[in-house]
């Protein structure tokens, strides 16, 4: 293995009020496989964006082939041979493999019409397909390919650009075991050809299998670099965690009561071969932790009736019920505060008053006509109660800040009679002050007898707010943790599919 051709030295990136990267260094030699580890939000994506020229670092040096670059754009990154295989693949469903690989760079016959030279196109792609040993043809329509095959198309595209370093962002998160095995072989092949790979993953055994060395990020800082010899799961997990969690925890006023929501062997379409069972008790906050893509949001959507359950059942207060739509969930007192506020949680052009009353309009109307006085009065009341900073409850909610928007979603449900509240990433994109207010509200609600299921990818939040934690891994619950067992180490162990 030769000298590193790509070096990031002491890279820092600050956004107003946030340090996203702090003195991170990374070097890649030809044919080297580097694993990049860290929890959600540790700074991996920012680092990759710096590497791709999308984000300019606030400090530090980028050196390519030993030459320090003062400016470094996306075009520079491509010219330097850096290519991305994205988590959500950037491919065109309506084109074939070759069309995707050479999109925007199609070989053309001369002339005004610039007709595509199909023969040359296919001939250029075929050797690349062979090189990876892929089982599709250059003219196979992309729509016929599996996710794993599409990933290979992305890699082929990278190779067609003479990539020297391919960056793969969680490439195996949606692959089956055998597909993962295949990808490992492809990576080994690239390595043998002298192409480097930067590999972002949560799966420690894959790191063990293919990485030459690894760096670990935490809160934007580089907390460790492991050589091939030092790579073992214990060392990696130790580096990924180990931060002092500020103690947020407020214990419940009374021990949790009887089971309100009982999910038994629920199967969602995302993980058709995994069943989830969990019980939620009155006055309890159950944290649902796991890595992105573990199937937590899908579970919440199924409980709320947005997506159908493939199998299994849900009982409320011991009575089995069938929830075919959000309306039926709402009528049972099961409310969801969705992760995507703008697309699902709120109607941004509508006012706060109109958003709050929407699920329960009948209560604000007589003879089918909406009583805007009552509607506004309730909105005003909720605004006071939740300290929503909105000048006017009649202004469109789209004009409010993220934290206040989230409180409007909450106000919608608190105007009714919540029995079970499901929060999907309750504080995503919300500033610190509003976060604390939402945590306080969670505890007040649970003390008032509401059962709360809180999906969160924020370790501090899961550990600091929950009374009990369920951890999901690839569509199943890999374990429950009682308050006494709470630790970042334990949560992470379960999240990557190990046992505690």
């Amino acid at each position, binding site marked *: 293995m030769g000298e590193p051709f790509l070096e990031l030295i002491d890279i820092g990136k600050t956004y107003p009020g946030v340090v996203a990267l702090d003195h991170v260094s990374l070097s890649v030699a030809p044919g080297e496989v580097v694993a990049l580890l860290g929890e959600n939000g540790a700074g991996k994506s920012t680092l990759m964006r710096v590497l791709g020229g999308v984000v300019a670092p606030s400090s530090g040096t980028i050196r390519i082939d030993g030459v320090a670059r003062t400016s470094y754009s996306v075009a520079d990154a491509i010219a330097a041979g850096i290519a991305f295989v994205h988590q959500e693949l950037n491919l065109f469903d309506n084109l074939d493999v070759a069309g995707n690989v050479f999109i925007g760079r199609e070989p053309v016959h001369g002339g005004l019409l610039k007709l595509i030279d199909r023969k040359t196109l296919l001939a250029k792609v075929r050797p690349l397909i062979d090189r990876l040993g892929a089982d599709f043809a250059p003219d196979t329509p992309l729509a016929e390919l599996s996710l794993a095959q599409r990933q290979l198309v992305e890699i082929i595209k990278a190779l067609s650009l003479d990539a020297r370093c391919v960056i793969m962002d969680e490439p195996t998160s949606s692959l089956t075991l055998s597909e993962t095995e295949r990808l490992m072989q492809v990576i080994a092949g690239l390595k043998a050809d002298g192409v480097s790979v930067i590999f972002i993953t949560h799966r420690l055994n894959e790191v063990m299998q293919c990485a030459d060395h690894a760096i670990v990020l935490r809160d934007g800082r580089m907390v460790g670099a492991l050589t091939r010899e030092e790579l073992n799961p214990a060392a990696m997990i130790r580096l990924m965690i180990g931060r002092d969690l500020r103690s947020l925890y407020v214990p419940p006023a009374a021990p949790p009561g009887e089971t309100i929501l009982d999910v038994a062997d629920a199967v969602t379409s995302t993980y058709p071969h995994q069943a989830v069972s969990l019980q939620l008790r009155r006055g309890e906050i159950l944290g649902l932790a796991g890595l992105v893509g573990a199937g937590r949001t899908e579970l919440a959507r199924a409980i709320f009736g947005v997506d159908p359950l493939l199998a299994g059942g849900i009982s409320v207060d011991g009575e089995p019920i069938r929830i075919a739509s*959000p309306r039926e969930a709402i009528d049972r007192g099961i409310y969801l505060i969705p992760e995507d506020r703008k697309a699902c949680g709120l109607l941004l052009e509508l*006012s706060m008053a109109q958003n709050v009353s*929407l699920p329960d309009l009948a209560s604000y109307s007589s003879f089918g006509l909406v009583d805007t006085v009552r509607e506004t009065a309730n909105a005003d009341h909720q605004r006071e109660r939740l300290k929503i900073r909105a000048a006017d409850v009649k202004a469109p909610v789209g004009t409010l800040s993220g934290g206040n928007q989230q409180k409007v979603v909450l106000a919608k449900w608190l105007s009714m009679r919540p029995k079970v509240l499901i929060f999907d990433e309750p504080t995503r994109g919300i500033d610190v002050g509003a976060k604390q207010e939402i945590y306080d509200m969670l505890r007040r609600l649970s003390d008032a007898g509401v059962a709360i299921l809180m999906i969160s990818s924020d370790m501090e939040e899961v550990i600091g707010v929950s009374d009990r934690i369920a951890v999901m891994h690839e569509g199943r619950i890999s374990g429950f943790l009682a308050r006494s067992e709470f630790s970042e180490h334990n949560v992470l162990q379960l999240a990557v599919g190990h046992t505690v």
Partner: protein
Amino acid sequence: MHKKDLSLLILILVVGTVVAVINPRFLLVGNLSNTANQVGMFGIFSIAEAFVIIVGGIELAVGSVIALLGVLFIDLIVNRDVNWMVAFALIIAGGIAIGIMHGTLTTKMRIQPFVVTLCGLLIYRGAARYYTEDSTAGFGYGASFPTLEWLTAGRTNVLGFPLPHSVVALAIVAGIAWLVLHRSVYGRYFYAVGKNEEAARYSGIRSDRVVISAYVICGGLTALAAVLIAMYTRSISPAVHGSFYELYAIAAAVLGGCSLRGGEGSIIGVVLGTILLQVLQNLVNLLGIPSSLNFAVMGTVILIGVLADQYFVQRRQRSATARGQVGAKRSPAPLERVGAE
């Protein structure tokens, strides 16, 4: 009244004044009464269209439905001796059935509304022509339905103005539609589903039902318009009767502030849009413009109107941004206008 509706009203008054100055016959009672009659008939199916557009759909079969149901209505009362009240009920039921079909196909089968209703446009037109063997359906000599004729095509003298009963029908329809859309729980659901169906669903709105009911309202109102139009024309050539009416309806809805993306529009606006279109028709006739230019004039005016609207919206936004207001982008807020009206 909303600002947009107000500017539309001003535009109507300006166009009307110009026409009246050039050709004073515009203001003759007979001409105004005839124009009002057209507004009455066209207004009803334009409101019908608006319901569908507000939930984010489109209905292209309006003209063909008017032809098919018109033919059926005349056939029922003239040739099959069905009591006209029963026939009327059957026709309305037919319109509702078509609405249920279109709504179900778009929601449950997930076919794009443009495609569903385009097929409807072709099918109903063909059915009407086949049913009459492509011949004109009409009232023979001696066929007389005095009550029905008075109710649908008659006029009542109000302070010296012969008020067409189609206008009375439109006033009733518009009044109820206004109440439903701008005041009722259901109207909220229409706008919410049109704006963001996913978020509406997360708020417990059964969006499929809301969309289907919009098509049902559209079908029912179109059937009502079909009877009025059939009784007004008294003879129906199934190949051309009602053709392009869906485009009049869409044009009136767009002029009235409906967005084809859904979630916007007001009933007052749609009625004003219908009036503007009919005044323009009248203008073509009275100003001696070749009637072949009819559509071209309408198209030009609509385009200019939409461009002007766009221009003013952008200018408002720019000046709002210049003042440093965060709420600069609050232009659409369709439910806001409810309070303003």
